[in-house]
């Protein structure tokens, strides 16, 4: 020890010295004493009654976490939730859209009769108001059904069972088993899922969980997926089957997302984030009867209103921006179409089109507004003033803009895989404090999204589809 050692260094040196003088097993003894003490106290204070009732908890648990039925049951529960969401949201969504259209028509009429210039009327009503109306009618009903169901499962104690069922898959991918929990949180919101990765103690595995959280669709993206599934994929089936097929498509997308999560986790843990999966113990809590009021509050106020408000905040300026883009003409073409036309070749290459790519650029602040942005582009430019019902939307997109099933499928895939929203990217930065990993987390998915949609387009076109 030198004389200019800091107090901290002197302290550590002394600690090392003292440690050598201690009996070798002092740590074990210490921990054992603690456990022993806890055990003897519990013995004195706790009495387990002999009354043995039929234990439905463990019966249900054995089923839900069984190696054979666990995963299929999980998919069944997920399908049921989506089916309820889609079947239940259809009618209120249409009613809301109709209501907003009516208000918009009245507003436009009023402004026109007052002699207000057309561009103010257009900007406020066809731009800002229509943006809001779209977001609320497309998003509110599904969220108001999906969130309470999800929160119910959360409060019941189902999420750790999901983690348990999927643990072996994540282990195979070289990732942490708890990643299935953070992935499940990602269904609610990817930014929340990324914050939840704090439960993973290994930095390597935590980084994998952060980078791949985006591959499960968040609640901002579910309405997009649900709409596409309803309008396009399910449209070619008999009406009676519509909601079932739509739910099935959304579940398929979710499963694809989970597969991507696992594959990318595996790739990361074998390349840049090499390492062994660490062992952990996961506690399966008892099932608890959820508190109805708590569920409604959490799901409706904290989640639905929160997400909706975020969407509204971005939808209003986005609506205004689109209206401007669509109404400022350079030559005889609007600015919007100039950009869309420039993006068209790239869009076409991946089975989408220029308008869709432009919508994704405008929607970077919040994924919630992709579909509304897209529709406003098509509608605003197509001289249509009303918000069409789902069935009219199908006719319009297929008839006027050349959409095919390939477009719908690729749009769903793109929506699933593309870059995370601005909030999520910010969260990645806050949690990792690393420019490198944040960039990878933001751009990696985008590259994957383009690669996958490109491959799908090539294959589909080779078979004469799309």
């Amino acid at each position, binding site marked *: 020890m030198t004389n200019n050692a800091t107090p901290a260094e002197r302290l550590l040196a002394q600690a090392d010295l*003292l440690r050598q003088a201690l009996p070798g097993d002092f740590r074990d003894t210490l921990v054992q004493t603690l456990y022993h003490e806890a055990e003897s*106290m*519990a013995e004195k*204070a706790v*009495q*387990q009654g002999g009354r043995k009732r039929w234990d439905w908890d463990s019966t249900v648990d054995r089923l839900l976490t069984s190696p054979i039925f666990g995963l299929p049951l999980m998919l069944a529960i997920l399908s049921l939730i989506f089916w309820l969401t889609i079947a239940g949201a259809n009618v209120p969504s249409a009613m809301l859209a109709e209501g907003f259209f009516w208000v918009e028509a009245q507003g436009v009429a009023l402004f026109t009769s007052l002699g207000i210039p057309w561009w103010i009327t257009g900007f406020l009503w066809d731009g800002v108001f229509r943006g809001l109306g779209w977001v609320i009618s497309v998003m509110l009903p599904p969220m108001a059904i999906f969130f309470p169901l999800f929160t119910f499962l959360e409060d019941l104690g189902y999420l750790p069972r999901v983690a348990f069922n999927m643990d072996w898959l994540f282990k195979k991918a070289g990732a942490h088993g708890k990643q299935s929990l953070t992935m499940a949180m990602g269904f609610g919101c990817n930014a929340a899922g990324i914050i939840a990765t704090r439960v993973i103690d290994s930095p390597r595995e935590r980084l994998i969980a952060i980078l791949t959280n985006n591959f499960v669709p968040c609640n901002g993206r579910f309405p997009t997926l649900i709409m596409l599934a309803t309008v396009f994929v399910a449209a070619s089936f008999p009406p009676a089957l519509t909601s079932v097929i739509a739910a099935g498509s959304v579940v398929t997308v979710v499963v694809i997302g989970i597969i991507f999560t696992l594959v990318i986790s595996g790739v990361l843990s074998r390349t840049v984030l090499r390492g062994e999966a660490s062992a952990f113990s996961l506690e399966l809590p008892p099932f608890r009867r959820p508190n109805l009021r708590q569920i409604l509050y*959490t799901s409706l106020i904290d989640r639905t209103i929160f997400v909706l408000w975020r969407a509204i905040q971005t939808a209003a300026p986005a609506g205004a921006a689109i209206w401007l883009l669509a109404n400022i003409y350079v030559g005889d073409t609007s600015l919007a179409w100039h950009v869309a036309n420039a993006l068209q070749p790239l869009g076409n290459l991946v089975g989408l089109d220029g308008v869709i790519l432009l919508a994704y650029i405008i929607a970077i602040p919040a994924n919630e507004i992709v579909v509304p942005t897209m529709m406003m582009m098509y509608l605003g430019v197509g001289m249509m003033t009303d918000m069409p019902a789902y069935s009219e939307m199908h006719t319009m997109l297929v008839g006027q803009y050349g959409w095919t099933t390939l477009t719908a499928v690729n749009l769903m895939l793109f929506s699933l895989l593309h870059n995370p929203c601005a909030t999520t990217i910010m969260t990645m930065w806050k949690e990792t404090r690393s420019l490198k990993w944040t960039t990878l987390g933001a751009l990696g998915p985008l590259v994957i999204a383009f690669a996958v949609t490109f491959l799908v387009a090539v294959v589909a076109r080779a078979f004469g589809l799309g």
Partner: protein
Amino acid sequence: MTEDCATCPANASLAQMGVDVSNFDYLIALAGNPNTGKSTVFNALTGLRQHTGNWPGKTVTRAEGGYQFQNKRYKLVDLPGTYSLLSASQDEEIARNFILFGQPDCTVVVNDATCLERNLNLVLQVLEITDRAVVVVNLMDEARRKDIAVDVRALARELGVPVVAAAARSGEGLGDILAAVRDVVTGQASVQPKRVQAHPALESAIRDLLPLIEQAAPGLPNPRWVALRLLDGDLRIRQALLSGELSEIAARQRQAVRGFSRKIALQGAQ
């Protein structure tokens, strides 16, 4: 809290203050194993609505709220669940740092009545570092359903600190928690926490290190715990000491605690 509870005599003097944690008289930490209902207790006392969820690891940041009881203002901090004070993941570190260095006036350790033995490990570790603690045996309703009886008096005798039986979900025992916390912070309760007797050689080694710790990190709360970790060869604590981070953490805990932190209360951000 349910309506019945708000009007029952025990709670008549409780006022939930939500995120208003200004000018508080006492600082209370809410600790415990994961998934024992800490957030439920927190919500019931503060009137806030922190998300609760039935899975371990739900709370990863700390949330703060306030309540007023018999004209005293309390600031309550809901911590992420932790099985021990020795562990390392980030959420657990938040809990550990606060319990160790945040210097709460009282630490309420929430326990799951249905697996008390495992929960008591944390209680004993907390009692190693503070005597101002209240032990809450929560989820009594679940225990009854499983035909498990907990003798809280016997437990209080063993632990040497107040023990309260509760079922926070239905509001059961909340009044007792309030009273027990009051008694501890005002010194009305006699607390003689159970300390696990360490090996005599270990005790003397700890005594040797204490003055050195005071030199290296002056004013650090719980130097005894730090000494123990150093003797154990805890690498993170070593690094924290060398980089001066340990003193910094301790200082930050105190600072954060004294400030009015609406942001923390609203977003659970630290």
